[in-house]
């Protein structure tokens, strides 16, 4: 059974989701089944993480031919780049099942499908597999926002779906281009990651293919200025879906950049790194500043999440070990902290039926545990040392300074921008005077406590002892950095040579 861990983690939830959709079950049973399956997957994920030994090779690798004539395989595995993303994806999902009650079973079924597809996209070692899971991922999101979302759900769901699919189509064209190039260079068809990395790509075609991939991922992450779907989608989606979108799906975008763009398009990547880095940093500042005046709690967190995604993406484009490690670490750190913030917001919304910040106040007096959990997650989100948020942000800023001083300094302003809106939010929600609504607020129930507190502990643990996580990503990160620094040096040489001529 343990040999097929990954396959179980992909198809277990997928099949469960489909079965839940087809069978006439009550939503309580669907919720229970979903919780059960997702917890099993989470346990398997933790086991996978523990068994994973740091190396550059692919672990838990499995490969079966699907369309041999075109070289398409069912090929999955994990390495240092994907292990943390995978961990995040599987351990966070159960929280949604445990915390929120929905009236319709379809919600839980969709969540299950989303989980399976996300794990599949993370574990895929074959581009076609990846593309397939990448598209499946979007379906449940479409249904969850469109069916169970807020008032303006239809507009939001159309926006996110069309936008993302437009990006995906560009990516698909690029995938086809890659395969054709590979066929013309080697004479065989292959869509396997490992073979595509050996491609020698030059010229306009390569640049266009690079842009195709990059746009698809930039929309998913989202990178400035492709983020405009995010505030609407995050705000209108049911909170569990927002949680999945921000904590996991956005991270898969970042992961995909490292996985597919960096090793295949080294040259274009190095060439566009500065522009992309600026886009990350500007996105961070832009969304962070916009977050300040939001009146809707969820919309503010949405902007905050987008702001942090900017800095996480920045880490990839800095092309050095510290920044890349920081990004991979921050993927987990941000998923846990922002995830908890969204979940706690969901609890507020459920109990008080409002998300308007001005309607709240004094929550801390009635619910000290709730406030404490929120405070820890908030502090991690603003990067306070001692929480997980600091390690990642510090490494990214450190790397950014090496890459480009201006970008480094701008990235540093996240320290200030983050606290501005977060503290003001905290003041208006948790401090100040209570009102009629907040006087009724219940503190976390037992189930909620045992769901959220472990993640809070993880946030603190990762801040105080990040080494187990860093060690697992280190060899792969080193390998990826090496690819890029070599390429950057070559680029430098050619530039200096042209200047010399």
């Amino acid at each position, binding site marked *: 059974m343990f040999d097929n861990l990954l396959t179980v983690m992909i198809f277990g939830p997928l099949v469960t989701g489909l079965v839940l959709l087809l069978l006439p079950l009550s939503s309580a049973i669907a919720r229970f089944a979903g919780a059960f399956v997702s917890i099993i997957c989470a346990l398997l994920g933790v086991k996978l993480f523990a068994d994973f030994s740091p190396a550059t090779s692919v672990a838990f690798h499995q490969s079966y031919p699907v369309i041999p004539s075109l070289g398409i395989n069912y090929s999955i595995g994990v390495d240092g780049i994907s292990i943390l993303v995978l961990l995040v994806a599987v351990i966070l999902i159960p929280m949604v099942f445990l915390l929120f009650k929905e009236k319709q079973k379809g919600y839980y079924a969709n969540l299950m499908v989303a989980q399976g597809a996300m794990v599949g996209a993370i574990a895929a070692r074959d581009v076609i597999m990846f593309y397939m899971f990448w598209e499946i991922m979007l379906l449940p999101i479409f249904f969850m926002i469109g069916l169970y979302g807020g008032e303006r759900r239809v507009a939001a769901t159309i926006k996110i779906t069309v936008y993302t699919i437009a990006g995906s189509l560009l990516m698909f064209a690029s995938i086809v281009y890659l395969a054709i190039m590979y066929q013309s260079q080697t004479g065989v068809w292959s869509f396997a990651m490992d073979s595509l990395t050996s491609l020698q790509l030059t010229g306009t075609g390569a640049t266009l293919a690079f842009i195709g991939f990059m746009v698809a991922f930039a929309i998913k992450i989202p990178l400035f200025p492709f983020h405009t779907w995010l505030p609407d989608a995050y705000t209108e989606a049911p909170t569990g879906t927002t949680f999945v979108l921000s904590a996991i799906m956005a991270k898969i975008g970042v992961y995909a950049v490292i996985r597919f763009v960096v090793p295949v398009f080294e040259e274009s990547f190095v060439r566009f790194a500065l522009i992309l880095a600026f886009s990350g940093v500007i996105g961070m500042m832009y969304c962070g500043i916009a977050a300040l005046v939001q009146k809707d709690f969820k919309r503010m967190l949405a902007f905050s999440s987008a702001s942090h995604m900017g800095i996480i993406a920045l880490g990839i484009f800095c092309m050095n070990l510290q920044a890349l490690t920081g990004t991979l670490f921050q993927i987990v750190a941000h998923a846990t902290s922002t995830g908890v913030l969204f979940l706690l917001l969901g609890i507020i919304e459920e109990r008080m039926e409002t998300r308007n910040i001005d309607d709240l106040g004094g929550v801390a007096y009635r619910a000290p545990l709730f406030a404490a959990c929120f405070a820890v997650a908030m502090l991690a989100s603003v990067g306070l040392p001692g929480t997980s948020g*600091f390690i990642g942000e510090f*490494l990214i800023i450190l790397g950014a300074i090496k890459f480009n001083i201006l970008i480094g300094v701008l990235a540093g302003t996240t*320290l200030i921008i983050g606290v501005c809106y977060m503290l003001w939010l905290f003041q208006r929600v948790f401090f100040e005077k209570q009102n009629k609504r907040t006087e009724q607020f219940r503190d976390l129930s037992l189930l909620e406590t045992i769901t959220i507190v472990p993640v809070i502990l993880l946030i603190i643990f990762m801040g105080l002892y*990040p080494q187990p996580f860093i060690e697992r990503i280190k060899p792969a990160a080193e390998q990826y950095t090496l690819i890029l620094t070599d390429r950057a040096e070559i680029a430098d040489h050619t530039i200096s040579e042209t200047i010399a001529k």
Partner: protein
Amino acid sequence: MEQSTPYLGFIPLLPLAGALVLGLMHIATCQGKRIPDKLYGILGCIGPFIALILAVKVFFELKALDEGKRVLLQRVYNWIEVGDLKISMGFLADPLSSLMLLFVTFVGFLIHLYSIGYMAGDKNFGKFFAYLNLFLASMLLLVLGDGPVVMFVGWEGVGLCSYLLISFYSEDPANVVAGNKAFIVNRIGDLGFVLGISFLFWGIGADGFDYISLEASATNLNPTLGLTVCLLLFVGATGKSAQIPLYVWLPDAMAGPTPVSALIHAATMVTAGVYMIARFSFLYVQVPLAGEIIAWVGILTALLAAIFGMYQRDIKKILAYSTVSQLGYMFAAVGLTAYSAGIFHVFTHAFFKALLFLGAGSVIHALHHEQDIWKMGGLKKKLPVTYWTMLFGALALAGCPLFSGFFSKDEILYSALAHGHGAIWFIGLIVAGITAYYTFRMFFVVFHGKPADQSLYDKAHESPPVMTVPLVILAVGAVFAGFLNLPHLFGGHLMVSHWLSPSLVEHHPDPTLALELLAVGGSIVAFVIGVSIAYRKFGTKAQEPVYRGFHKFAENKFMVDELFGALIVTPYRYLSQGISRIIEPWVTDGPLKSMALLYRLSGLAFKVFQVGLVRVYAIYMVLGLSIMSFLLIKTLNL
């Protein structure tokens, strides 16, 4: 590793554990049955007390070592290790940090004790002690950290606790705003700190990123980078230690409970910047320009804050501005590479300023949270212990000869002279005079003269022993701490400076008797003038003056807060509004929206062809077929 000292890590860990236990107890019980305050008080004091004992142990252990080798280390585990960046969760005790350790734990413990009395009956008693313990843990981590990054953990930790404690009475939005202000302004400084250590790492961090390795490779640092690092770190210090232009948060921070003001905003946290610069003395001696900038910023801050201090009416704000002003002195000292003088002033200041704050707390407690000095008066009879202890504190702050503040301040002014900065010395002297004036203005108005508010006066009562005992202990410190570093002129041996010398890289100019006499004489004259003016104006009959013109302007703190508000806060808010109301929907989302619109328009255009008549569709078909046939014939050359 090097000599490992297994208990070093426990010094911050114990208060941290205390904070956790107290915090959980508070969360568990604050809704239901309350745990008695006494239990919280005892639990809260255990951590600081054991830390104090360990600090003393560290001190004696260091003392037993040879002068050149006074270093104790404990590396607990590898904290962050990425490529060249190797940071261990390590603790380092050397003469500098052990001195800080001693007075931080000592003053910290006394203030914990005092708080039991001051906070009695507060519904968040447990929370208060949890925060206080957390603060102490962070401060000790800051002091003991063996490298800049571990220091930064404590650095931000104290900032967080400061925020939590300033907004402790959180039902009043004004207090929370003050807390936010403190945190955000500190964060601006922290940005400087982070950038500073990042540059430092790329400069010389590859061989280990702790103080010992950094000191070893400090000479390899290129001068431009060195200046950048020094100035950026100083930006961090201006945030934490309230210097121009980031001092604005400290006066507002007085919104917190008074013991907090004493512990955090006077004795310990705000001096972290001075400590940090002394820690990096090996960098700063290489960059004299950075030092000069620091010295000037420091002395100008001292002057500015002293001027503001003259016009305040809130007893705590007077003390707050005096803290800013004294911090300015310390920065002037460390800027002039007189690190030991700066640290010595940190040391004495901790005693007398904590004493003054706690004394002020005692007065406020007695008057049921009245802080306006013009409503006090004649309290000498009602609060004898507070009166006498505050008198000692005031004398020390004002720089009365033979009190601790005199020696440390004199040391700073003397080093300004000795390093050839006459202007800094002269400004320092003026500040000393102003300090003496406003300290005794406060003192006379509060304790002498006639009660301004009889009903308040009648209800006043002396504080319980749990509050007065710390006052007395601190008063002893405020009087005698100065003798630890008695200069040669008075027959002393500069004990503290000697003790600190292994940790600091500093140049002692050769002492000349004439300069020393000039410095001492100047200080005495400044003190006498300041106190006598205060006595003439407020000694016997204090009347609330009406300020006009420049005085009014100074009372309003030169409108600096308003200026910052107009230049930074309001534009920032408008920028945010602009982005989320205008730029986001119309500019950033514009291409997307226009694309959707274009799609719709093209639909409208194509709609024209859909007439819904079968005959017309047939025409289209025929036309299409004809065109295709035509093309086919053309291409096949038929």
